[in-house]
């Protein structure tokens, strides 16, 4: 099957009209920056500390442990300094009567849209770090196991209220969401 453009039956929008996706309307809560920083320190930072301790205590390992230690330290620095700023600048979300739209990512950006007619559950989830900062994650799941949308770093009250409102909308939508 050799591709021989122009393709018959191609129902994509016409090629001469340039399409552009606008970013979702709302930013996440500014406190999310602190949450991302803490998360980076808790994961990459912890690994760096462990490697560092081994490097310091176990002298024969130093020749081959120096490179991993430097890499881990650089990765931690990037996660702690760059990641929160970039994520705060990028992350956006929006929910309409018809769909939930999220833009996430740091090194890999992802635009995700899920129609409310296919949504199965809407939850406001709070991890321990999020609880400490008064934040919550809005998790919207669909019948597809990989189709969930998570909007992280929302104000806890806002997330709870959103979950309630979106649940009300999905309950009005007929169908079994598959």
């Amino acid at each position, binding site marked *: 099957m050799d591709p021989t453009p122009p393709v018959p039956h191609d129902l994509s929008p016409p090629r001469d009209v340039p399409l552009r996706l606008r970013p979702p309307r709302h930013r996440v809560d500014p406190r999310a920056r602190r949450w991302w920083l803490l998360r980076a320190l808790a994961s990459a930072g912890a690994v760096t500390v462990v490697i560092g301790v081994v490097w310091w205590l176990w002298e024969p390992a130093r020749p081959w442990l120096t490179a991993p230690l430097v890499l881990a330290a650089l990765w931690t620095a990037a996660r702690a300094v760059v990641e929160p700023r970039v994520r705060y600048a990028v992350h956006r979300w929006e929910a*309409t009567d018809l769909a939930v739209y999220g833009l996430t990512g740091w090194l890999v950006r992802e635009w995700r849209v899920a129609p409310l007619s296919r949504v199965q559950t809407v939850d406001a989830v709070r991890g321990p770090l999020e609880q400490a900062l008064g934040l919550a994650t809005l998790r919207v799941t669909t019948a597809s196991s990989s189709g969930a949308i998570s909007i992280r770093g929302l104000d806890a009250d806002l997330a709870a209220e959103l979950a309630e409102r979106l649940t009300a909308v999905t309950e009005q939508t007929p169908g079994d969401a598959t």
Partner: protein
Amino acid sequence: MTGEPDAGPVGAVRTALPAEAPADAVDGVVEADHPVADDGTPWSRLAPRMIAVDLARTLLSLSPTAVAVGVFGVEASWSSLWPLLALGAFGVVGAVLDAVRWAVTRYRVTDEYVERRSGLLVRRYRSVRRDRIRSVDTTARLRHRLSGLRVVLVGAGQQVAAGESALTLDAVSRRDAERLRAVLLDRVADSPSAADDGVRVLARFRPWWVVYNMVSIWSFVTAAGLLWGAYWLLTGFGLDPVGWVEAMLPWDRLGRVGTVLVGLLLVLVVGAVGMAASYLATSWGLELARVPGEAGTHLRTRQGLLTTREVNRDDRRLRGVTVSEPVLWRWMGMADTSVITTGLSVWASSQPAAVLPRGPASVAWPVARAVLDADPDPVGAPLVRHARGALRRRLWWATATSLAVTAVLAWLASTEVLPAWAPWGGAVLWPVALLAAVVAYRALGHAVVGDYVVLRSGLAARATTALRRDAVSTIALRESLLQRRLGLRSVAAMTSAGWGRYDAPDIAADEALRFAVAAAPGLLEPFLVGAPEGPGVSGPRGAAPGDPSPGAR
């Protein structure tokens, strides 16, 4: 020993279905310690012939021990006979449990429910609402076939999705199985010929497809299992298989490499024979057909030599097809055909996604087309090739991976963990990786054809998937740093069927958005620049619509 007394409850029932369900019923399936409703319908037993089958099983499972002692003269001691005795005990216990199960199990079909009562000490009632029944399948193992019995699997609601039956009757006579099927699927019981009207056969068994199914990665596993089983059994009879193998060839003169090669060849041959036998046993008499049902049509597969099985897939749950062509075998024209249906786990063994065994591409493509039966036809449609950037990205990754592997190997060689020639392994990897990158790039393709979106990708197995556009739920666009430099984006279509996620990697950025918009009709349009503003459900309280940042606190 006849199935006649069982006919009563099944034959008696044929009425309208009730309206409301018990509140605690999950998909119409209830497991309780009392019957859901008692309208006095008599219970019936499973087929009494099972007792005779169990008796035969007991004798059969003890026969290896008898043969070993009587024919081969194996010393009758625990140490020499334990494997065979264990095998025998396993068989006897299985048969006794089966007989007990027969004694305590009853079933009946009432106006509303199919019910099964079981349990020796604690009585359990399992009932399935008849209006929730989605499938009634029958299977038969060899012992069932020889004795004219059938296992009836009743599938309902989400239970089907979990790959398990809502209710299993193991086993009833063949006549009862057919009658149950007819009654539960609301067809007329006594006119099997009427059911054959409108059956359209899409594919039939071809014995020569065995060549496609002989060699795969599983043949090594098969060979290992067969060889281990043979060794275990033969030593049980007091024979010495290791000695035979040692005497077969002058292993000393072959050297280490020769021994390994001969051994590998032997294992491959044994594995191929095992795979061929397994293919013939499972796929014998295969028939894939579209048959009319009480509500819409079904895709029906019948297959099996020793164990027959019939699987009915509701066409209302069909969301697409996938034709997967493994690398290397692809150039021999080999392909796997599977369907994408909702409410089914990909791993479900009761209703496997594959509708055909591995076979020639010249059959797989027409069958995939016939399964979808769509106009315009998405399966054979020409696909759009992806941008050159996709090739560059793959070449870049191939080079980076080879470099990283070479660097690690060089580092290990410099610290004398590995011999000095080790880095050359990384260097050899490079051209192979580049070749793989080109193959992977050439596999890419996408199109929107009629009601379907078609996606093709994959290095190890080039999978071409045609998915209904209205089945796409979530749509996602991805862009990594490297992809942004190359002007590429990946599109992922999420659905509730099949694998749940189907990817079209590395499409040119503009085309990617256009493709995503077309793949999920109506979903992305409101978020395009210049789209009319819809009413918003949500937003941070107090923030004006259109204000992107609520500001720092």
